[in-house]
């Protein structure tokens, strides 16, 4: 028994399994609430909340109208998805005794995090969704804007990876001769008790929501918790999915995400046909492409996207405080630029909401979605192979030269 508990809390879970579960849960969440697992919309609303707090009049900002800025974050199911994710990740971090304040040795990371966070927040909201609503939960809604977003994110990430490789960006690590002593450990372990306490309180809150008839808040809090647990235990990193393919030929995360989306797409089409719910479709326009490319660049600059930064912050990686702040600043600035700086007129107005279900019917939509996901998978495998082939050639030349 002890060993099974240990493997749950001491080890990270297989990312394939985790994303499979996330795919199933997000389809279920859609079936229950007719909304999707998403976070950046709420970040924009948080920005709106802050502006209101400072007495800024935002009543004529169209974007806040569009994302339904009403009430406070505690009264919004989407708000509870966000807070639930933070809490779920924190509980897991504490139960596994892995919280530690981690401060980057390279001070430049804070600046990179803030700037990257702003760009990613701006890009995500311009495209109307981040790696969730315009990617992981967007594809299973058959919203065509997700496919534009994926391609654009891939391109943005490519340039981000190029930037990451430059000397002035990455900096020099501390390399010393000989061995170093590891950190001395504190024998008393208290983190799991704190984690357990938070878990009990939070479950009490979920029960309260359901008992008091606030079903949507309860579902948001419950599913947020589950998503937070999953992304932390699986160390799910959408940023790394494309980036690491370019950087070090690593493909695990990309493959796992594609698998999760495939299962989620199949389940979602079943949910849609049984319960007759309307899929969530966003505008596909030039803004989707520009936003996706900015998002891809920004998340690599910041070392984390809007979801990844959540559990990393809970692990004590303080780099992600400026990233979180940047995400909210970027999203809020987009909300301002939307009508005040003409973003909508230039980039969005000519777009249209395209849903593959409407244009191709259910069989066509699921077939083309699975086909495109298969293509993406093949491209990932190809990218990994190509990286290792190039590496082998480079090494061969080095041996030859010496």
């Amino acid at each position, binding site marked *: 028994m002890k060993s099974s508990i240990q493997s749950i809390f001491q080890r*990270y879970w297989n990312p394939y399994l985790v994303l499979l579960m996330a795919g199933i849960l997000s389809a279920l969440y859609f079936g229950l609430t007719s909304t999707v697992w998403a976070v950046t919309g709420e970040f924009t609303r948080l920005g709106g909340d802050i502006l209101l707090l400072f007495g800024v009049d935002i009543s004529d900002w169209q974007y806040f109208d569009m994302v339904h800025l009403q009430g406070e974050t505690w009264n919004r199911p989407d708000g509870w998805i966000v807070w639930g994710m933070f809490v779920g990740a924190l509980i897991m971090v504490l139960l596994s*005794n*892995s*919280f*530690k304040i*981690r*401060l*980057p*040795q*390279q001070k430049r*990371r804070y600046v990179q995090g803030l700037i990257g966070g702003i760009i990613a927040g701006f890009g995500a909201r311009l495209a109307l969704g981040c790696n969730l609503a315009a990617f992981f939960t967007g594809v299973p809604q058959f919203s065509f804007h997700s496919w534009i977003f994926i391609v654009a994110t891939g391109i943005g990430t490519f340039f981000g990876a190029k930037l*990451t*490789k430059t000397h002035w960006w*990455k900096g020099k*690590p*501390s*390399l*010393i*001769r*000989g*061995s*170093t002593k*590891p*950190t001395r*450990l*504190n024998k008393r372990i208290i983190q799991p008790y704190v984690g357990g306490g938070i878990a009990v309180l939070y479950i009490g809150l979920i029960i309260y929501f359901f008992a008091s008839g606030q079903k949507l808040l309860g579902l948001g809090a419950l599913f947020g918790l589950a998503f937070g647990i999953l992304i932390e235990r699986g*160390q799910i*990193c959408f940023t*790394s999915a494309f*980036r*690491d393919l370019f*950087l*070090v*030929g*690593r493909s*695990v995360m990309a493959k796992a995400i594609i698998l999760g989306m495939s299962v989620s797409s199949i389940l979602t089409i079943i949910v849609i046909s049984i319960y007759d719910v309307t899929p969530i479709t966003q505008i596909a326009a030039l803004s989707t492409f520009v936003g996706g490319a900015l998002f891809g660049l920004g998340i690599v600059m910041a*070392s*984390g996207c809007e979801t990844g930064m959540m559990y*990393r912050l809970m*692990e004590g*990686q303080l*780099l*992600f405080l400026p990233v979180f702040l940047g995400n909210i600043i970027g999203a809020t600035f987009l909300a301002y630029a939307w009508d005040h700086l003409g973003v909508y007129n230039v980039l969005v107005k000519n777009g249209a909401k395209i849903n593959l279900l409407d244009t191709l019917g259910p069989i066509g939509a699921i077939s083309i979605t699975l086909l495109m996901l298969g293509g993406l998978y093949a491209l990932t495998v190809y990218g990994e192979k190509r990286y*290792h082939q190039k*590496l082998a050639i480079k*090494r061969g030349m080095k041996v030859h030269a010496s």
Partner: protein
Amino acid sequence: MQAKLEADFTLDLRGESCPYPVIYTLETLEGMNKGELLQVITDCPGSFRNVPEEAIAHGYKFAQDPVKNGQEYIFHIYA
């Protein structure tokens, strides 16, 4: 606990977030002479998996199993 290994170099990556631990590790190994031993200390949870997996995928060998030391991991890798 295995016998203490004397590393030729140590890469102290505590505090650095992904992807920098894996980039730094691979670049350092690339610059070392074949057979030299590198000790890596890292505390970014993402790197607990991607550093060892990518070191092996790039053809390097581990001198011993990774050691977990509280919230950090210690790797010993031959260049």
